[in-house]
């Protein structure tokens, strides 16, 4: 009966007045970023909610209209910064589609390895943080070590850790070093046991189930109408995965399952992400196996007019120096065209809509950011839930402020 009461105008100070307004965020430690939620609460129950975004809006789409194609990669890093390599690859794939560049298989597999590592890094943060939000810090501490190891692999490959700027249009800047392969081997050897232990810790944990099961649920029809993709849509029972529907980077060569849930609640989302980490491990294992039979020195396509040459070549070879300047200054010929290219980001379909007028920068670039689309549903998901559920709901949607605002 409480929701009938909320619209009744009562005299100031009346004890009958039961709802109050609470600003959850923008900068609250439990909101995982800068999100404001204006909650109308009745005791601890949320009567209604309104979400506000835009606190870190950085105008990436506008900035991209002034930048040569290469210089847009660092912008994509800063979307979903928990899995920036996927964003980078997504951007490179879009440009490659525009330019019509075919990649050697080995490059595709290297990309798959990196993208799946990034997916694991993103999911492990998301899932372990759901644990933290329900009061279980241990799992987070366990898994964090392995995100560190993934970052070390990135560092070995491209020299940076969080905003990786990894790869190039046409392939990678350099080959994976033996140290990178060794680190990858170590990760593949150690991580499954840790993930299993993490699952043992949380999946059948009574408190964890009570806090997440039946919280923030959404049915398949509504999830689809809200534009959900990725683990959040799959948790609701629709097995849509860009890697299967529109394979890119040779995903069609790999054998993997698309885990789906049933109720679309926080617990299902957690289970789907965990299952996906196992699938990602399997994909990486397959890719490492497939890569063994391929020539070891191939790490980029042979497209000198678009592929930014390695620095060593720029310093020592005239051809490479010329191409380097032409590419960096945006003097290369870019075809006119209109491309929509999507990749399966760690939290859903990350799309790049690019219009080229043949100039050095895109005429228009639009990012389809999954977080932006999920967050609209947040108000509905938390309606009627407890205040503490609002936190779990937010972390299980895997909202990343950088991507939300772009």
């Amino acid at each position, binding site marked *: 009966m409480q929701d009938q009461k909320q619209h009744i105008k009562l005299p100031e100070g009346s004890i009958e007045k039961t709802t109050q307004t609470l600003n959850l965020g923008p900068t609250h430690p439990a909101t995982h970023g800068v999100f404001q939620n204006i909650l109308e609460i009745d005791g601890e129950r949320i009567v209604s909610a309104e979400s506000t975004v835009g606190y870190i809006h950085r105008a990436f789409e506008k900035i991209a209209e002034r930048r040569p194609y290469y210089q847009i990669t660092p912008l994509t890093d800063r979307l979903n910064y928990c899995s920036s390599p996927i964003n980078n690859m997504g951007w490179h794939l879009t440009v490659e589609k525009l330019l019509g560049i075919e990649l050697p298989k080995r490059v595709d597999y290297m990309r798959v390895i990196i993208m799946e590592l990034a997916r694991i890094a993103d999911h492990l943060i998301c899932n372990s943080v759901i644990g933290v939000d329900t009061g279980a810090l241990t799992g987070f501490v366990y898994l964090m070590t392995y995100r560190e190891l993934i970052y070390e692999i990135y560092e070995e490959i491209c020299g940076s850790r969080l905003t990786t700027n990894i790869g190039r249009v046409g392939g990678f800047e350099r080959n994976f070093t033996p140290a990178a392969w060794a680190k990858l081997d170590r990760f593949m050897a150690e991580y499954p046991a840790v993930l299993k232990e993490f699952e043992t810790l949380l999946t059948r944990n009574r408190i964890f189930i009570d806090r997440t099961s039946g919280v923030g649920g959404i049915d398949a029809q509504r999830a*689809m*109408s*809200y534009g959900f993709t990725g683990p959040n849509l799959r948790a609701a029972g629709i097995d849509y995965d860009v890697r299967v*529907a529109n394979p890119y980077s040779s995903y069609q060569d790999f054998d993997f399952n698309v885990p789906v849930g049933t109720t679309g609640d926080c617990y299902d989302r957690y289970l789907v992400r965990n299952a996906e980490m196992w699938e990602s491990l399997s994909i990486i294992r397959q890719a490492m196996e497939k890569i063994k039979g391929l020539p070891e020195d191939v790490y980029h396509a042979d497209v000198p007019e678009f592929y930014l040459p390695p620095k060593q070549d720029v310093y020592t070879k005239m051809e490479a120096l010329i191409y380097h300047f032409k590419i960096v200054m945006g003097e290369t010929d870019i075809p006119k065209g209109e491309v*929509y290219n999507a990749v399966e980001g760690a939290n859903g379909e990350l799309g790049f809509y690019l219009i080229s007028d043949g100039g050095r920068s895109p005429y*228009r670039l*639009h990012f389809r950011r999954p977080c932006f689309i999920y967050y*609209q549903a947040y108000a509905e998901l938390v309606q009627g839930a407890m205040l503490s559920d609002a936190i779990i709901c937010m972390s299980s949607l895997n909202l990343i402020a950088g991507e939300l605002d772009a």
Partner: protein
Amino acid sequence: MSLTNERIQQRLTEKFGDVVSGFEEPYGMLTFTAQRDFNLKIMQFLFDDEELRFQFLTDITAVHYPERKNEELAVVYHLHNFQDNVRVRLKVFAPVAAPKVFTASKLFLSANWMERETYDFFGIDFVGHPNLKRILNVDEMTYFPMRKEFPLEDSMRTDKDDEMFGRGGNI
């Protein structure tokens, strides 16, 4: 049999005739233009039709073409049919003087925020939208920043004193 671009085009022209035009397939995706007032009817048809079933709205955005007289703003919809795994791109053009386009938020819940974003950056007035206000920019803003009349600073410009901006200058 899966749905082909030719079949979609055929169904659309049968149903709407001259309202839809400019069919092309850049990089394999069926793209077409519709008259401005028919955007919702076309999306409803694409949604409801048993053969077409475009029930997922991937994206809404806009593009500004200042040189196109009376159709400066293009609103671009990306729709997806999950069952047959086909995507289409629908465009409607609106004059910048009165950019009124019907809202799709009754058809797709996701259109609500996407249209707010498009309004925020391009000033498209989505007729019938339940809550058309700015989403990423501040409410007090009086202009629409993604339009082409607001270019970013040219990185090559030389006419200003870099020293004043913390770049270069004498030590």
